[in-house]
């Protein structure tokens, strides 16, 4: 790894690096969680990712500082530790968040560094950004993992604080540009878990975008402790997770459009 190059000195703010993830892109991956997001999805399981500001969260009774400044060089040191596993599995790095596109310079530098070191790249993004910001990423990213949360813009805004027009516009442009797209849908009871809502998304993905593969991810409550740890209310109340049968039913409905649909990442 060359570190005299300026991209390696690019700074950014992240809050976690998680190794050995196999649900966020192909193979065994290292996920870099960037801090700060433009959406405030009610079901978000990483509430500590949302604010740009560095904050403290109580974890098992211990105060933990969430978020730190780092450089591409520092991150790459960790990333490259798992290169043997990327090579064997076709895996690599996934940038997640928060919203990666909030730190475009850092993210571009990180992706460039990955490619320079022969590491496959993926991004998990809301796509809630101007196309000018997104376009330069096209050659740098091997797989885009993109949420389509709801086809109805008003409901989208109600549950995420942002409407969906810009996001869906960007997805179309990505698809048009031939990006390798995997569509994901968080299945959230009371928000988008009816057969019709899922079906509409599948039709959009398969017919309008020409996407081959979609993943439906059941809502889970694993973020609960984090909200409490941050001194915040849990926005989803007591809402239970959708059960296996329901997910399977929804999967079939999506698959009926012709798209390949998996439950989970």
């Amino acid at each position, binding site marked *: 790894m060359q570190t005299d190059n300026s991209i390696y000195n690019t700074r950014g703010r992240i809050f976690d690096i*998680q190794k*050995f993830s*196999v649900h966020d892109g192909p193979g*065994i991956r290292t996920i870099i969680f960037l801090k700060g997001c433009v959406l405030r999805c009610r079901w978000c399981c990483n509430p500590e990712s949302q604010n740009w500001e560095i904050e403290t969260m109580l974890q098992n009774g211990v105060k933990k500082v969430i978020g730190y400044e780092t450089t591409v060089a520092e991150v790459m040191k960790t990333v490259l*530790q*798992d290169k043997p*596993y990327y*090579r*064997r599995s076709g*895996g690599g790095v996934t940038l997640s968040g928060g919203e990666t596109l909030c730190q475009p310079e850092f993210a571009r530098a990180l992706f460039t560094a990955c490619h320079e070191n022969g590491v496959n790249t993926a991004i998990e993004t809301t796509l809630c950004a101007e196309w000018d910001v997104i376009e330069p990423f096209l050659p740098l990213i091997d797989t885009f993992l993109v949420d389509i949360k709801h086809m109805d813009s008003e409901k989208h805004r109600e549950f995420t604080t942002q409407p969906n027009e810009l996001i869906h516009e960007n997805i179309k442009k990505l698809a048009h540009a031939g990006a390798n797209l995997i569509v994901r849908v968080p299945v959230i009871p009371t928000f988008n878990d009816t057969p019709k809502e899922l079906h509409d998304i599948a039709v959009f993905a398969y017919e309008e975008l020409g996407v081959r593969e979609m993943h439906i991810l059941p809502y889970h409550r694993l973020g609960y402790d984090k909200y409490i740890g941050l001194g915040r209310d849990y926005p989803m109340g007591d809402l239970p997770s959708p059960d296996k049968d329901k997910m399977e039913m929804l999967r079939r409905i999506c698959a009926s459009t012709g798209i390949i649909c998996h439950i989970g990442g």
Partner: protein
Amino acid sequence: MVKYNIIDMERTPRIGHLIDALFDHMPEIEADRAVLLTESYKQTEGEPIVTRRAKAFAHICENLPIVIRDEELIVGSATKVARGCQVFPEYSFDWLEAEFDTVETRTADPFHISEETKKTLHEVYKYWGGRTTSELATSYMAPETLLAMKHNIFTPGNYFYNGIGHVTVNYGKVLKIGYRGIIEEAKAERAKYGFEHPEYASRTHFLDAVILSCEAAITYAKRYAKLAMDMADACTDAQRKKELLTIAMNCARVPENGAQSFYEACQSFWFIQMLLQIESSGHSISPGRFDQYMYPYYKADLEAGKISPVFAQELMDCIWVKLNDLNKVRDAASAEGFAGYSLFQNLIAGGQTPDGRDATNDLSFMCIQATKHVLLPMPSFSVRVWNGSPHEFLLKAAELTRTGVGLPAYYNDEVIIPSLLSRGIAIEDARNYNIIGCVEPQAPGKTDGWHDAAFFNMCRPLELVMNAGADKSGAEADGVQIGPKTPDVTTMKTFDEFFDAYKTQTNYMLKLLVNADNAIDMAHAERCPLPFQSCMVEDCIGRGKSLQNGGAIYNFTGPQGFGIANMTDALYAVKTLVFEQKKLTMAELKEAVEHNFGEDISDKMASLLTTKEIERLAAQGKPVSENTIKETFKRLKSQGNTSDFQRARYKKVRVLIDTVPKYGNDVEEVDNFAREVAYTYSRPMETFKNPRGGQYQAGLYPVSANVPLGAQTGATADGRLAFAPIADGVSPTAGKDTHGPTASCNSVSHLDHGIASNGTLFNMKFHPSALEGQAGLESFVALIRGYFDQKGSHVQFNVVSRETLIDAQKNPDKYKSLVVRVAGYSALFTTLSKSLQDDIINRTEQSRF
């Protein structure tokens, strides 16, 4: 075009019945062998020992009760009751006599023993006083060695009290030429010795013993032929009658002659396997490369249309069940160390041919299938992985892992073959390696490896360093000087000084360990040479001497060290906190460790220590009052902590230690340091020699001894509390590897696995969800590949949820067949002691898939 015929075959109902029958009864101790052995020994007083051994073996083969169990296709049982065991008083006996009344109720591996058997054995044992290998070995040991053993620095208990085992004989040869062929070979060899030959006496007696032993094996099989014939005559079920007649024909032909079919080869294999375990009580008699030496028979039958894959699979499944029919009773302490009724019969599939091509064949896949069909602890099933291993083979293996049976263990040819070469093993033999017992590689049919020769507790020398060679901590602490007088730690100025003291203590203790093992080695040569086993290992017949006298081509002694993770973390903490950052003085650290970091110990442990201390006081003639006992208990229970203020101070030291980076998290500096720590054990080890003309080689694995031997060890500077388990194998300390499985793998791969040529053991535990779906299997295989790319030598997995294990602990009846990976082997979870169960539950569960 598919290269392998991989059929996902259903298990036949027969296999289910055979398994159920295995668990019908509690394992039971039987006396027949001991009685026959003793009868023979009484008649052969004064004859050469090798002759006496052969005559005793023959007497046993001629008279041991034989049974054919319901529905069996492969026959030959060492005991009347399934999973029963014979006993072997020629090695040691007093422990069993002492445990007659507790062996049935003890926590680890209980056995039923009838009053009649007790009485019979009691009579038999009268003969054996002063005649066992263990007594002779003790008298050969230096007093310093006995002292170190008393203080739990190491334990050679395995071979001290039992046979050696730990061998893979040349099964292929017996399958091919039969014992008749071996008899011919021995006769031809014997004819070479003229009366004037200087070793005429020893060699001809050995060869005669071989001939007698082979004849005995043939006789034994023929008794089964007759029994099967008699049973067929009496059988009214046409199908079973036919089966019994085939069995009768098989047993009449093999193992006397070369096998002419796959079925005969299976039967022949089984007689070899079980008779080896009648001759001696050594465990880890490992079938090795079953898929290689059995394949020619399978291929020939298949091509001739004489066998269907389904029937071949059923025969293999029958063998897999039979491997669980054999059993062995150990003393209570050893049972903890080898828990799970395990005989460690390691069987391996895949790998390379002696000339370096991929060796995977249809039987390799069928071995996986058989293991999946029976889901039992035996065989200890392993697979070899090399750069050219077919991906589909590894995926099939991963599917087996996913069942949670803890099998297979994965071995890396790319590390093991060069490692064996470095020990002087020829390239063809190295490529042909298999695994013995837990994790020990060797060249089959040519090696007497003495793998598992002792456990060396790497934590104990550090305790000695803290007290300048005196034992002031641990379960036998009495302040006696047992190691060299290294400098007072509080006067040390550099870490090197401290590390040197650790090496000094270790080196001294390793020499005593060698002293112990060599004494035991000599005792076995003198009192228990094994002509039957020897005739199937090269070049005993050619050299005219038994394995125990150095007849094998390759001779080793492989004692295993354990506690790498604890010692790495402890020494690294000392280096960082005391000598570099100076956040702690040595005196403060020493005090905190001595007081168990301000924590109490369990009542049970405190009572045990109190008893020992009171006994010592009494022995010294000091007055012991009620009050003395009470005060002693209080002091030991609290570990000398007298105030909350004091406790808080010591606890703070432990918190500070916790902040130092730990082994298992892919921290380069720590992991490189671990490599150095492992060298303190493995480097001196390779300089020692054994009496069979071979060298010592280090292993780094604990079987399951990390728990009981941890219970003998005081607190350590890595923050481990007194008497808690020690980390297993080369795995990171449970709960200290917090960066996921790739980080653990990367850390472990920093060790030099090659120099630990007696094997290393890396345990990982996965939640079942980790292997879900095709993607889960693929990632799992990639993880193994990635670890092996970095020169890891072995890895094994427990795939079972924490909740399941906790539930099994509470409701053992519901989980009688739940198999978990313990160390180098799998065992039934509910048969393990509570503390070992806890240890398995607490090992880090990697569920982050």
